């Protein structure tokens, strides 16, 4: 399964009130790390559980700062709290879940894996997304999916201004209101294949929202080529 549901019973516990983040990350980067980890007292620390490349489950009890679970590969990281800027930046695979809200640039340039935020996100959620999937239970801020190339973003709440500005081929599903669409982002019809894709994403995120209530947005592909009518502007 994508999303961590581990119990802490058998986990290696690391208390960040007593242990530097570098030590935690070095232990997670060691060859053949223990399969289950529990991190306590993060207190908004930056760079918690970054750069993991192993099939481990990490549960973080409390709020984290910037770049939590950045560059994640294979691991399932669960934050029981809020997250700062750059959650799961450049995520490659595995899953990252935040039970609270996350700040800006969630999953920025993420290549693969699943990122779930149960609450809201700040601006630029899924900026430059390159293949990861993002599911947000609440709303996303402005300029979300900016220049997103591939992957899927699901927003169960509302989207801020300029959603999908300069988007390439990422697919966006929004249940609530969109404040405005960015340049070259348009609403597109929801066909059966999209409803099925959306249902799968919602199920992987552990959500029961009705796919029929979402709208789909994507690229109008008008920015792909130079337009001779605009030659004077180039």
């Amino acid at each position: 399964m994508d999303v961590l549901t581990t119990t802490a019973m058998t986990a290696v516990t690391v208390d960040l009130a007593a242990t530097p983040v570098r030590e935690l990350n070095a232990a997670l980067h060691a060859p053949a790390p223990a399969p289950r980890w529990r991190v306590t007292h993060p207190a908004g620390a930056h760079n918690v559980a970054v750069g993991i490349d192993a099939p481990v489950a990490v549960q973080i009890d409390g709020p984290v700062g910037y770049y939590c679970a950045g560059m994640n590969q294979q691991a399932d990281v669960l934050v029981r709290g809020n997250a700062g800027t750059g959650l799961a930046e450049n995520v490659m695979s595995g899953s990252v879940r935040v039970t609270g809200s996350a700040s800006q640039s969630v999953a920025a340039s993420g290549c693969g894996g699943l990122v779930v935020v149960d609450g809201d996100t700040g601006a630029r959620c899924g900026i430059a997304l390159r293949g990861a999937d993002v599911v947000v239970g609440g709303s996303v801020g402005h300029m979300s999916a900016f220049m997103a190339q591939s992957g899927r973003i699901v927003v169960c709440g509302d989207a801020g201004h300029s959603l999908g500005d300069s988007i390439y081929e990422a697919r966006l599903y929004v249940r609530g209101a969109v404040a405005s669409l960015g340049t070259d982002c348009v609403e597109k019809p929801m066909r059966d294949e999209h409803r099925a894709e959306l249902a799968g994403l919602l199920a992987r995120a552990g959500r029961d929202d009705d796919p029929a209530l979402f709208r789909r947005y994507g690229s109008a592909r008008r920015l792909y080529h130079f337009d001779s009518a605009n030659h004077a502007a180039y």
Partner: protein
Amino acid sequence: MCGIAALQVRDPALRPRLGALMAEMTCRLVDRGPDAAGIAVYDAPELLPAGWSAVSVLDPGEAGWRDSVSAALGSEVDVRLFGPTAVLRARATTAALAGAVRSAAPELTRIGRGAHAVTLKGVGLAEELTEAFGIGAMGGTQAIAHTRMATESAVVASGSHPFSVDDDLCLVHNGSFSNHASVRRTLRRQGVDFDSENDSEVAARFIGHRMTAGDTLTEALDRVVAVFDGFYTLVVTTADTLAVLRDPIACKPAIVAETPAWVAVASEYRALAELPSVETARIFEPEPGRVYTWTS
């Protein structure tokens, strides 16, 4: 970078701990701004009793300015040293004390004035400065602090925040303004004087100028959005109000936490992590371009 922190205490029982809580918040942001730091504390009873006013100056030296300021004011001026900051206090209105300092000791660099707020600033790490200032032992109603990573102007104490340019009006800024020179020229033509080449001082002067002309704090901050170009999270305090404003694209961070006992604003959650009952606080990021205020 730069780190900002502000705390307004709603529960009177918490007021004696204001300084200790603010020192903790400020020191947790030191790696956002290791060059310099400053803090303004409101209504600290031991620092500024009711009926008194304070004017803060930087590195005043040993000259005979104290006697000349007292003579100009017509009453005794008390002086307390906090690291590089000297706080001149008197039983007088802020205008009278500030006027006496300006006329009798124009060579002094004035960094703050008010009947509620006392501004302290210096160069160096927040840990060292809050210790030197004795912040941890101070009580009060609200406080505003800054840890500076210098970008637009030199690492000197006069470039440290908060900028307090009008009675009890303090501003801290994370970011940089790209049109501050133009706005400074405009304000100078309207008779506004400046103490530094710092871009953030321009915003403080602008807000003070607008409020003197009759704007509310919210109106003045809405004008900031219209006039200033650049990146900013601003926290501004007046005698009884705390305000926060982020630029329209939310380039710089801010987080607000609110409980029945206090409201706090900071660059990052880290700064809030030790506040009492923070786990029960309503926590949110201010929306871009929107002015938020809280009045004690």
